[in-house]
């Protein structure tokens, strides 16, 4: 019986590793300049965790096989130092593994969070609110006008609470429900939450960042492949969370300029 269990264990461990090794569930192709580092980090994590997982399952199976034929009264040998030594060894091993992942991954992290966006980066503000994303472009003057929360009115589509009659900087601001960006241009995304916590996630951009009400967070990225991609909220934010999304349109500079003109005309 124990031998059957040991064999089953090995079969399950190998069967669950096969789809991972064959890349059956691989994320969609990366369309960003920083994504290769993230993918590398994910692969490193997968290899490290996968090797540990397989090793643990095989060792377990070997021990079950080995001791399945023990005679009654046979003494079981202890790990040197007893349980305390075993636990200490496990902590050191796992700690080293996590530390190694951190050391190798710091480049990917620092590339997004510790490096400021370039001076030429295009600013776009994104506002997350139950249950939609809206975007604001500063217009020709390059300046965002102030937000007046008391002026937010969905009936008139004043999503950001702008006072375009009085604030000079708001006059040419362009508010949209989709986010278009020119290809190969760095974007500086300024994140603003209207109500509760949300998250900005684009799989193809390898970017995921929470919105925190009251905190002005920002991201920067460069998209390298034209197309239409889904922006989804990945922080449970309420009843309509499942339907909270928008689309990212990566376009050539020419298409982007035309799109911008259309949006400006629709304000």
């Amino acid at each position: 019986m124990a031998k059957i269990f040991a064999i089953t264990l090995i079969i399950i461990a190998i069967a669950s590793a096969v789809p991972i090794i064959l890349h059956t569930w691989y994320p969609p192709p990366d369309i960003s300049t920083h994504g290769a580092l993230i993918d590398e980090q994910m692969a490193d994590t997968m290899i490290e965790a996968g090797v540990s997982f397989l090793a643990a399952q095989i060792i377990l199976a070997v021990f079950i096989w080995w001791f399945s034929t023990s005679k009654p009264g046979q003494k079981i040998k202890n790990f040197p130092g007893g349980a305390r030594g075993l636990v200490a060894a496990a902590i050191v091993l796992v700690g080293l593994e996590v530390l190694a992942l951190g050391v190798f991954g710091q480049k990917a992290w620092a590339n997004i969070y510790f490096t400021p966006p370039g001076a030429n980066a295009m600013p776009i503000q994104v506002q997350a609110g139950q249950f939609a994303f809206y975007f604001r472009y500063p217009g020709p003057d390059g300046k965002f006008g102030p937000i007046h929360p008391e002026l937010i009115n969905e009936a008139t589509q004043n999503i950001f609470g702008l006072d375009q009659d009085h604030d000079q900087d708001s006059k040419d601001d362009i508010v949209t429900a989709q986010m278009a960006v020119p290809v190969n241009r760095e974007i500086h995304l300024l994140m603003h939450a209207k109500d509760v916590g949300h998250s900005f996630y684009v799989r193809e951009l390898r970017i995921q960042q929470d919105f925190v009400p009251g905190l002005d967070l920002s991201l920067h990225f460069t998209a390298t492949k034209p197309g239409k991609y889904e922006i989804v909220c990945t922080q449970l934010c309420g009843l309509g969370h499942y339907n909270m999304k928008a689309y990212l349109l990566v376009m050539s500079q020419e298409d982007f300029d035309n799109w911008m003109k259309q949006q400006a005309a629709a304000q």
Partner: protein
Amino acid sequence: MKSCYQSAGTLVVLLLVGLALLYSGPAVGAAAGGKITGTIKLDGTPAHQRPIDMSKDPVCAQQHTGNPVKTETVVVGANGGLEYVVVYISEGLPEGAANAVPAQPVTFAQKGCVYQPHVIAIDVGQKLLVTTADPTTHNIHPLPAAGTGNIGWNKSQSPGSPPIDTTWKAQEVAIPVKCNIHPWMHGYMAVVKGPYAVSDDKGSYTIENAPPGSYTLTAWQETYGTQTQKVTVASGKSVTADFTFKAK
């Protein structure tokens, strides 16, 4: 003895006549009701209406391809007539007429991811049906003001759901309505007592069956507020009451 029969007979006849009058009273009143009619115009340039981008929910956007829906805070027809203005009798209505509730329901439809019509008027206690014709889930959320006697609620309706069947408890002009899933969806429910009308795309309205009497007539528009004027309704006659709102 004869006079005794006589007085008893008179009493019975009087009683019958009195009862007949009592029971036929409202019917007589309705038959003799007058009509209030008029046109509502806007003086000046209407507030700019922005096109709505529904790309967040593709099944909504598909229904308006090439012809985006605009916001409806001020809707002006070709002849300057103002649509979606609620007209009702705000003062002077006799108790009986104020408390009468029309039997037919008022429908507030969710179609093409907009509320159709954008504004409804409804009597206190009148049946309200909220229907959905969209292939996406809506979550309708009326927001009555505190202390009015009306209580807010919100309900989800998935595609193919039966209508929500409900009523409002108290007069309130007007209750804003929004959809918790599609933030651009916006409308109003004006809850009134007594006869009412909502202006059409030419800005004209007709209140049928107003009982004879002198009243204060109120017109309410979501952006420009209220206007009132005095009207006198005569039995079987039509009286005209026009309103002009000034664009801010």
